[in-house]
């Protein structure tokens, strides 16, 4: 059941993100990228299958893999979170610089011509 | 010790505390929906941030104490920090709202907004 919910969540986040990504204003694109990266992070995470109450923190000693959630996707998501955070920040600053240089907050740096 | 060996009364107390805390929080959140003006709504979440939180944290402390014998009240950290930090947001927010209401006189307010001393309009 939670699989359905989470799949829908990924879909809704992804759709919202994509919609914003395709919008003309830079700020919309930033928010879109953030939402998309949420979607993707959960997507990566979901690739390890879902487990409740099985955090991959072991006792001290040899362990049975079946008892724990898959740690690898979690590690990947952590890296992805960091990178997308960094790039969101960079994108924001470029957006500001573009706005300062062109006066427009359109993604193309100029208002669309009629 | 584990959950299985936990006395039923303790389990009951923990459950009641948790449900009570959650209920209070919900009530606060409901207030957020139901109250009609912003200044009234600011008060609502405090329910969850004080007693609601306290009940749940006590439940947690009791649980880990009875079930795992871990009686050090780590939950105190959350309680203290939350108590100290929540007002910061609320104060700033109320201040900001007041300022906005004062400057935007045109927008009718349900309740009168006090002017800041002699400041005409803000």
């Amino acid at each position, binding site marked *: 059941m939670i699989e359905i919910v989470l799949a829908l969540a990924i879909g809704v986040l992804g759709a919202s993100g994509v919609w914003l990504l395709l919008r003309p204003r830079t700020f919309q694109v930033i928010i879109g990228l953030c939402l998309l990266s949420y979607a993707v992070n959960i997507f990566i995470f979901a690739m390890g299958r879902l487990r409740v109450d099985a*955090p991959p923190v072991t006792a001290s000693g040899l362990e049975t893999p079946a008892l724990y959630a898959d740690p690898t996707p979690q590690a990947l998501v952590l890296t992805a979170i960091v990178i997308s955070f960094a790039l969101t920040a960079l994108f924001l600053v470029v957006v500001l610089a573009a706005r300062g240089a062109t006066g427009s907050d359109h993604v193309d740096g100029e208002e669309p011509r009629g | 010790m584990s959950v299985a060996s*936990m006395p039923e009364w303790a389990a009951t107390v*923990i459950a009641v505390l948790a449900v009570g805390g959650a209920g209070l*929080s919900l009530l606060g*959140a409901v207030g957020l*929906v139901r109250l009609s003006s*912003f200044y009234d709504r600011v008060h609502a979440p405090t329910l969850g941030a004080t007693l609601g939180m306290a009940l749940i*944290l006590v439940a947690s402390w009791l649980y880990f104490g009875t079930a795992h014998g871990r009686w050090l009240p780590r939950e105190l950290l959350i309680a203290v920090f939350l108590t100290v930090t929540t007002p910061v947001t609320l104060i700033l927010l109320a201040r900001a709202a007041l*300022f906005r209401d004062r400057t935007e006189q045109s927008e009718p307010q349900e309740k009168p907004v006090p002017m800041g001393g002699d400041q005409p309009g803000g």
Partner: protein
Amino acid sequence: MSARILEVGLTTALVLLGLALVCAAFRIIRGPRAQDRILGMDTLYLNGMLIAVVFGIRSGSDLYFEAALVIGMLGFAATVALAKFLMRGEVIE
């Protein structure tokens, strides 16, 4: 039996807190003004933190404590920034 009592009680608490999230989200979405949204956000964080604590009790693990503490200790940074922005038009002066 204890386990069952806990199970029912804590799950109920989680559902109640989930409903509280919904109420807070309503305020965020509905507004009408920015301060309402920020207030809703604050409430959302608070209830999220409580969910983390209750979920920790329910799973009998203290691995979730830090997450709750992060919200309790640092969550206000986001809402303070929002409130300050509202008040001054600038977060850092």
